[in-house]
């Protein structure tokens, strides 16, 4: 069985898989226990599984774990210590989440947009993720100061 080493949240993690075609999503959730990254559709549409790969937003259901080797992966658990990333601070201040299932992906997409140099409303314009609870207006408010 193939053994791989993933660089996740600044640490090296050795995993063993039966199938290097396993989406990164399931390696993160099942093999590394990083369950903050969510499964929504599995077909690269909804964005609930968004993580950062080398700093850029990536739907983790759309990347084979084999091709994630050698890349720097950041999940919601590694976005900051103590919820201190400005997006997390803003999300709490604006009380954004409802059910919360999409919010890890929303936050990682926002963090990626910020890394790319976007500010304020432009961050929301970069987010293509789906929320079915109705948090879009509060996300738009939360990114204003970022």
């Amino acid at each position, binding site marked *: 069985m193939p053994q791989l080493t993933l660089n996740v949240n600044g640490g090296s993690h050795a995993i063993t898989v039966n199938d290097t075609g*396993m989406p990164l999503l399931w390696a993160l959730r099942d093999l590394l226990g990083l369950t903050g990254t969510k499964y929504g559709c599995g077909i690269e549409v909804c*964005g609930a599984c968004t993580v950062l790969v080398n700093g850029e937003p990536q739907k983790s259901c759309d990347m084979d774990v084999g091709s994630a080797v050698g890349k720097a992966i950041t999940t919601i658990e590694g976005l900051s210590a103590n919820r201190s990333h400005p997006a997390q601070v803003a999300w709490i201040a604006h009380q954004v*989440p409802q059910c919360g*299932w999409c919010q890890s992906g929303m936050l990682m997409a926002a963090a990626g947009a910020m890394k790319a140099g976007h500010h304020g409303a432009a961050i929301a314009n970069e987010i293509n993720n789906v929320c079915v*609870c109705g948090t879009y207006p*509060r996300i738009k408010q939360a990114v204003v100061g970022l």
Partner: protein
Amino acid sequence: MNDIVNLPRRQFLGTVGAAGGLSGLSGLTLGLFLPDRAEAAGGPATATAVNSWLTVGSDDSITLTIGSSDMGQGSFQTLAQVLCEDLMVEPTRVVLVQGGPTMVTPAPIGSAIGTGGSGVIRNNYWKMRDAGAIAREMLVSAAMARLGDSSRGNYSVSNGVISHAPSSTKLSYGAVAAAAALLTPPASAPLVPDSQFRYIGKTFPRADIPAKVDGSAVYGLDVRLPHMVYAIIKHAPTVGSTLAATPATPAGMVAVVPIKIWTGLGRGGELAGNVNAVAVVGSNTWDAWQGARRLSPKWTLPANAASLNSAKFFADAQAALTQALPYTAPNPSPLGALYTVDSSGDAVGLLKQAAIKLDVSYTLPYVAHAQFEVLNCTVDYVAGVKCEVWAPTQVAKSALTIVMAITGMTAAQVQVHTTLLGGGLGRKLEVDFISQAVQVGMAVGRPVKLMWPREEDFAHDQYRPMALMHVRAGMSKSGTIDAWVYRSVSQSIGAQRGGVLPPKGDGQASEGANDLPYSFGSRLVDWVKFNASPIPVGYWRSVGASMNTFVVESVIDELAAAYGQDPYQFRRTRLTDPRWLAVLDAAASAAGWNNALPAGSARGIAIGTAFNTIVAQVVEISGVTSSSIRIAKVTVAVDCYLPVSPGGIEQQITGGVVHAINATLYGRQTFTNGAADIQNFNRSRMIRMNEMPAVKVVILPAPATASRTAAIGGIGELGVPTFAPALANAYFKLKGVRQRSLPFFPNATMSD
């Protein structure tokens, strides 16, 4: 050791046995009785369960254990602030704990209440207030005994600190909690007057939110147990199928487990006892899923599989509309049975004499819930010892009951943990997925997590029923609506669950069509229980109100157009209930109904009720393409009688609007030869951030003094029903075309 107080039965429930879950805390603990959903719906009170729990600890902690489920609605926080009003403690001090279900009578710890019917706040408001007041008075009584002054007027309370004015002594709740626990609770205690509310009517930060921004919140799908294996469900694609032969376990898999529909969980053509699925068990989700994909079980299809098509269902519904005989008929039609819901005057006769006549039909499709967290359940079964279950469920007690039935274990051997829900929307009122996970757990003899891939979640839902409505209305030359004849055809959700229907039929099927407050000279509302579809149906956010309100409020708009009157004024002049008028006016005013719009834009209005709350919406659209409608602004006025958390109401109403946008524009499920056609979001589009309209929520104020006998309204589902008609009415205004079937864009797709 807890000090446990037995409260008088009138307010609370009696003896409490062994304490669970709060060991290590000493102080005053009260058991509150919160009604379950059956009782709230008018069923008999089952005064047997202590299912919420308040502990004032000697360490000054305040812990509230709540058995309802959190699917994003934030009602734990709202209940806490209701409690705190009379307990006189800052709501942010309260530690909220998820309660679990139990069969023990009386229950030892805050046990589960079903979470549905927009009911958590409206059904529990007064009980929480009484609990807070009684606990406060017991604590003050203990302070009075401590200080030797029994004059209540000499004491006041502020944020959990009791002040004795004559001696300037201050005692915290914690200092007297143990002594208070020895007192007999009063039957009642004075409540804080509404005019002095500090917490009710304000918004407080939700305790669940921090964990939802750092990935630490644990939903059902996030549960992990040592040595756990992973199961993927694979249903027979065709409704009503059974497994012909158990497939061999593929190489690399742990097991393939045939899954039976458990007694009581049969729905429509999916009959109890049928083996209609297999679970493929592997060492992780992906491997199990790949195993399931490679597996081709042989299914025995129902004999009529080739006729199970959406077009046929609608044709049969059309036939049932005219051919259904009264449910009391000796030789009923196989297509359906007719129930009279509401009748006044000779509506059919008066139709014929009307100067302005309308005769229209509307159709609604099956719609999937598509709650964002797919169905899943984790089970740790140890034969003869225990069965522990973690589930994102709206009905933990039903879960406990089914687990006991499947395992044959006692309540003491079964433990059900309600996790956070990544959305419920009514789908997680069902326990099919829990029953399946338990079967897998028993078969493999080790901890297992069962997941429904999104495709299974879409294709094996218990859908909002498809429906056909035929409406005839007659107006006089002066615009009075002299006759209103409304017939709907839909499956009965209740009957699919074994319910025996009363003479007026399934009340949920006629929600939103019954007891309309318009001034109708005569009316006949009836419902045909449609029997010619085997598709499982279920409770979908706002249930019948989401279906009937679309039709009723579209037809009212058609009448306004036929009469040539502004649709807002048309409604205004045919409503008399002051609350309805106030809500309608509030929505129109906040939306600037009378303000001119640029070319290419239009507004529509609708009003309706569900769960004792009245809602009016104005939807403003600013353009239409071949694949979508640009929704610019939605204004929602809400009268729920007693708004507790304005921020929570705004969130829930906005969420309901989004749910309704997705369903109205794009939502539908269709069937070909008994198999669901739409299996993922790529063919069931959801709006994204850039399509989100501005939503303005106007909350009508609480009465000066709320009455215990007045009905508090629900909120969680109330954003849904009035959206679709308001949109259709705006669309008519803009395009001159009346949309009489939903969704607007059935073939819309979605990709990254």
